[in-house]
């Protein structure tokens, strides 16, 4: 009988699920993903974690609880780094330790370290380490990994083309309604797990789409575009998310077709506290693009967010119409 491995639908699920899924399935494991984030999952997570933990980490715990009794093992890698000379966040580096010391009655935890800070080749080492639980043949693991990487590349390409993970994984792309108004281009910046978890962001992307906006995410911009901008920073940004977010912002503010930028910030997130501030400073200093910060925590109410979002969109529309009505010599 094949081993079932549980993957929490949280944190880097949104970045790497196609890779992990293919990899483990190729090795003959049965992959089980936790349910979509819900109030129950969130509450369970909030209850088990220290108050000070950020919302995404709390939610992660909720997903682990959702899985723990129906799988043989859990995949909770130690993510130190996913890119050369860069880090993610101390909380990713300590994730398996935090989970193990917070929750009891867990099945086996596969806590392979992923550390690509020195070299991207270390990804294969991580694959061998995670794969050894399922298969003794290194060549076979290697093959599974290569295939997984292919799926991952394809996934990244789909994201770049503007597909959202929800549409890709759940295969039911909701159509946005045709509307009379001219669509706005709204860029949305935030951690994958805030941006793509519909429960967490209270359906933000869908709401934007139905107020006739084209959404631009950091995932839709190429690494070259981003790096070209971040190279101009006086000091290299050492968070993977931070580099991409700041680079994207610097790129966006030079584009003429961006009508607004929204930053989704996790309450209490250390990385966001700096990255959001840098992005905001640059955008305000060097452009006229409207900028909105939406902070989410376990208490944020949907009504409040909707109001702010509507006001933001209205303001942009109003601005657009004013600009259009200005006489050419004005």
């Amino acid at each position, binding site marked *: 009988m094949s081993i079932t491995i549980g993957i929490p639908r949280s944190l880097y699920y949104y970045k790497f699920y196609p890779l992990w899924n293919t990899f483990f399935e190729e090795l003959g494991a049965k992959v089980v993903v936790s349910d979509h984030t819900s109030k129950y999952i969130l509450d369970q997570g909030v209850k088990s*974690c*220290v108050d*000070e*933990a*950020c919302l995404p980490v709390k939610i992660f715990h909720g997903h682990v609880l959702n899985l723990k009794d129906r799988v043989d093992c859990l995949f909770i890698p*130690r993510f*130190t780094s996913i890119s050369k*000379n*860069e*880090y*993610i*966040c*101390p*909380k990713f*580096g*300590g994730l*398996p*330790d*935090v989970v193990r*010391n*917070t929750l009891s009655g867990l099945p086996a935890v596969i*806590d392979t*370290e992923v550390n690509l800070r020195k070299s991207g080749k270390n990804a294969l080492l991580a694959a061998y380490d995670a794969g050894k639980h399922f298969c003794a043949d290194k060549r076979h693991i290697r093959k599974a990994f290569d295939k997984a990487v292919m799926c991952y590349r394809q996934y990244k390409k789909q994201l770049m083309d503007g597909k959202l993970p929800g549409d890709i994984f759940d295969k039911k792309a909701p159509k946005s309604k045709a509307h009379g108004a001219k669509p706005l281009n709204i860029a949305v910046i935030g951690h994958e797990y805030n941006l793509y978890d519909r429960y967490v962001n209270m359906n933000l992307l869908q709401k934007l789409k139905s107020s006739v906006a084209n959404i631009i995410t950091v995932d839709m911009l190429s690494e070259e575009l981003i790096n070209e901008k971040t190279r101009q*920073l*006086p*000091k*290299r*940004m*050492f*968070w993977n998310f931070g580099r991409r977010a700041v680079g994207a912002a610097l790129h966006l503010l030079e584009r003429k077709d961006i009508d607004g930028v929204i930053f989704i*910030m996790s*309450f*209490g*997130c*250390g*990385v*966001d*506290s*700096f990255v*959001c*501030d*840098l992005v905001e*400073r640059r955008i305000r*200093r060097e452009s006229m693009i409207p900028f909105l910060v939406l902070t989410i925590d376990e208490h944020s109410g949907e009504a409040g967010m909707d109001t702010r979002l509507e006001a933001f969109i209205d303001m942009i529309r109003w601005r657009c119409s004013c600009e259009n009505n200005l006489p050419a010599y004005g």
Partner: protein
Amino acid sequence: MKITFPHMGNTYICAKALLDDLGIEYLIPPFNSKKTLEIGTKYAPEFACLPLKINLGNFLQAYEMGADTILITGGCGPCRFGYYGEMHREILRDIGCEMDVITLEWPDKGAGEFLHRIRKLTGKLNPYRILKAVREAATTAMQADDLERLANRVRPRELQRGTTDRIYKAFLNLVKKADGSAGIKKLIRDTAGELLSIETDMDFRPLRVGIVGEIYSTIDPYTNLNISSRLGSMGIEADRRVTVSGWIIEHMIKKALRLPRDLSYADAAKPYLGAMIGGHAQETVGHTVMYARDGYDGVIQIYPLTCMPEIVAQSILPSVEKDFDIPVLTLIMDEMTGEAGYQTRLEAFGDLLKKRRERGVYGKTVALSGG
């Protein structure tokens, strides 16, 4: 060029020794105070960690007094400290405060850039003199830390409450007027003599508490509301393994010279936290284990609100607490922390430790007589 630097506990003593010996003009910002924090909070991002806000306050206060260049150390992640310099640069720029920021770290651009930064600081000084000054500054930092440790030993045992604090506080002010590493070291020796001559209760066996947590908030007395002194006056001896000199020697000098570092804390932390994740999380967990093994009565973890590595450590500490049966108290500091609530929590913790000790002694006597 008039240099200034951020405060963190007694760091200014080491910085002063270095800059005096090099003959560089500088200005020590006023000691951390409510005012400093208010200024910093006003201009820093709302969710930035507390040390950034206080540092910013330091710079702006020093700027008013005529400083124009900031000297700080840096890093390359994963915690926020490594990006402090850039944040400061951006904030100062937006508020129109023209200060240059020199970050002492190994830059991405390599050795050339590093030498350029050193040159900017030292002008044409010869390398021998620079090395000598660095060595003297490091030993000054060690002696300043020893002095603080001595004060922490004497305080809970003093007969006249407040004597230690009076002497130590006078020292902190006098240092500012001392001349170079030599002058500072003499002052340290004199102060140590004074501390040693304080009348103490030699038989008193104080409760012992280890202080762990984020480096800034554990070291800086303004930030931790003078925890060692509060504990001391409750008759509790506070110890802290993370020190300014330790940081300079282990993190900067040994790393640069590739000397083997003391990693006993990492071994102690290993079963609970298997990797270096940034900040001082590994030290926090490791030192808690070590304090427990050394028979300390309790451990207090201190960190600034939203500090990422310490939240990881905090999530793990309950396991250490349980495995070693040692009480751990976590204190989280931000600009809203009130003194009254803080004191109450410390006193409750002190009472708990006292009761545990009494119970322990009682338990033993019963066992002996019942034997």
